[in-house]
């Protein structure tokens, strides 16, 4: 985007361009934008995420037209009105509810892709950090949204998560409780809590949209990273975004939508919890309070620590660690393709996250029975948590300096054309 290649073709176009060069901006950003010619499948998730954000905002606005944010009426407004009375309300609700899962699925692929190819490294640190902010905002938005149907899991999930703030009592007595009550707007999760969560759930997606704008801006200044992790050296290394990546992103986007809608139409409650079809009841605690699948790894970390305060700090630390990744990785080479050791540690890290997710989905006292010996899963979570932090804070800085990397190709074009000849 160093210089603009947009040339208005009509007189009106020229007139407009001199006053508000928005067509130029779109042309430079999504038409002529020079993109590395070797982006693979894993690079389509940015476009998919943009689509998911739009889908969630549009369906969410329609749902908000019919939803009643009140402890007495919320459950009925969803299960009776939206699911049964509003025309295609069931469809919009299932698209929105499954959309949240798909949004997280895509964001996790996007994040792991960034980790694998070193997309957080200079000069893309701000791009990565903005991405982490988007992820944190998504987590908050999803949490608020899950509370809105006011089912049992909504209510108890809200209670558990907001109660985490009471851990501050262990440092400053009563401060945590005061914060918790302030968050609730009452002495328990109730009407006031539901109303503010609804307000925030409506607000945050627009904040996300704003940060996504910054994220794309920060992407277009240095340009895309690529699977080789080497810089673009000239025009021979790139293709224009249109039509090469519009058609590619478009094709994979449609495949993703097919996958997504297969759940909406044929397994709409696959990601849901049956308990959330029971109206919230402050007097009945569900046997197992579990968050949605996309938060399970963090839930496992929280439960792995006996002290509530330290558990909460570990949970927060696990999320905030991501902000420091650009400086924790000391390697000069971006892509794991040329980092044999880091590649293995990366896959171990991916497996670790899935393992933590599995432990998070099990009951707190669950155990594996291995040849007559009970192995409590909480220990699995402890090892998993240790590796999560060890990966970022020990292995990344250390391996980066010592690892013998493979030789990098001279340029993207050279690598592409060399491979094309085979």
């Amino acid at each position, binding site marked *: 985007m160093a210089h603009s290649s947009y040339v208005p073709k009509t007189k009106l176009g020229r007139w407009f361009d001199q006053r508000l060069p928005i067509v130029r901006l779109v042309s430079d950003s999504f038409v002529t934008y020079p993109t590395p*010619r*070797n982006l693979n*499948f894993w690079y389509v998730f940015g476009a998919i995420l943009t689509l998911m954000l739009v889908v969630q905002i549009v369906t969410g606005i329609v749902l908000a037209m019919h939803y009643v944010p009140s402890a007495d009426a919320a459950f009925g407004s969803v299960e009776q009105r939206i699911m049964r009375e509003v025309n295609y309300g*069931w469809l919009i609700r299932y698209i929105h509810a499954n959309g949240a899962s798909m949004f997280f699925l895509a964001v996790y692929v996007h994040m792991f892709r960034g980790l694998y190819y070193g997309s957080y490294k200079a000069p893309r640190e701000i791009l990565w950090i903005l991405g982490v902010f988007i992820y944190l905002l998504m987590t908050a938005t999803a949490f608020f949204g899950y509370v809105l149907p006011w089912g049992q899991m909504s209510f108890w999930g809200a209670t558990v998560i907001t109660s985490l703030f009471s851990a501050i009592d262990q440092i400053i007595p009563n401060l945590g409780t005061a914060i918790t009550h302030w968050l609730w707007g009452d002495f328990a999760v109730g009407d006031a809590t539901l109303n503010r969560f609804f307000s925030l759930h409506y607000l945050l997606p627009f904040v996300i949209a704003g940060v996504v704008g910054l994220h794309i801006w920060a992407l277009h200044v240095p340009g895309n990273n690529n699977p080789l992790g080497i810089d673009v050296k000239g025009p021979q290394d790139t293709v224009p975004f249109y039509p090469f990546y519009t058609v590619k992103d478009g094709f994979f986007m449609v495949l993703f939508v097919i996958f997504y809608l297969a759940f909406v139409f044929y397994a709409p409650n696959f990601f849901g919890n049956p308990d959330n079809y029971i109206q919230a009841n402050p007097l009945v605690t569900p046997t197992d309070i579990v968050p949605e699948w996309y938060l399970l790894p963090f839930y496992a970390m929280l439960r792995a620590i006996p002290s509530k305060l330290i558990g909460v700090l570990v949970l927060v630390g696990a999320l905030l660690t991501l902000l420091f990744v650009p400086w924790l990785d000391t390697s000069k080479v971006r892509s794991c393709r040329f980092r044999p050791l880091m590649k293995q540690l990366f896959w171990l890290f991916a497996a670790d996250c899935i393992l933590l997710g599995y432990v998070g989905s099990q009951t707190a006292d669950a155990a594996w029975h291995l040849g007559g010996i009970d192995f409590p899963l909480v220990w699995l979570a402890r090892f998993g948590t240790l590796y999560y932090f060890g990966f970022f804070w020990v292995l990344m800085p250390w391996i980066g300096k010592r690892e013998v990397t493979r030789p990098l190709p001279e340029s993207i074009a050279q690598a592409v054309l060399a491979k094309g000849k085979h």
Partner: protein
Amino acid sequence: MKPALVLALAAMSVAASAEDLTQPQAPQVQSWSFDGPLGHYDRGALQRGFQVYKEVCSACHSLNMVAYHDLAAPGGPGFSEAQAKVLAAEAHIPAEPNDKGDVFDERGNRIMRSGILADHFPPPFVNEQAARAANGGALPPDLSLIIKARQGGPDYVYSILTGFNQHPPHGFAVQEGKYYNPFFPGRNISMPPPLKPNLVSFSDGTPATVSNEAKAVVTFLAWASEPQLEARHRIGMQVLSFLVLLAGLLFLSYRKIWHGKPEDPGLVHDLPGTGTEKAPVGDPDSLSGG
């Protein structure tokens, strides 16, 4: 000391091999007419199930979210509007205030009226306290969402309804006023066995066995939980067929743009680089080594 230890160990090993009585058994998996992407509700089962609900379940369980007009809605039990009107008219609904503004008559009785299509199924008890008082302290849950609100869904509810025929295992204490049901969490259920052979008489000649009664009422409750299932399955096929077609077209465009020859019509790209480099853009996916 020693024999006690041996006994304890023996007891532990027995307990390890025996069934864990604190946990419910897994539901019996049934095949349902509404299973799978082409599934739809068996109309006969829906109507029989409505009969079972009306004649048996509704004595204790409400079905608050279902209205009488739903009985005639597409994808539902398939009653005609006239039939649904008759079924509604049989119901006694607390009347709206009369022209004097009263909802109670001179004797203090609640004024009732017969139901109309817009009415929801009336609950058997006026409130939770009344329901508990009539059921030994237990609250019969509303059944509007019961199939979606239980792990195991229709199989679970079917297993509960048909699971009363088993004797409690030796040493299992059934609590006072409760019944043994191996599929219920804790295995002590407050609901007495609701179904018996020939409890209802089906007008279509289906034998009224416990299994048939349970199957019918579970189908009816599955519809009550998910009344739009048939529309969902149908629209899903239409939407996904369209998307598969669109994906096919996009795939062809994708192939043409990335692998097409520059002289192909519609393929004039201002690609940078020399002439020889123009032809193969290179397919990043076939190139990607991971």
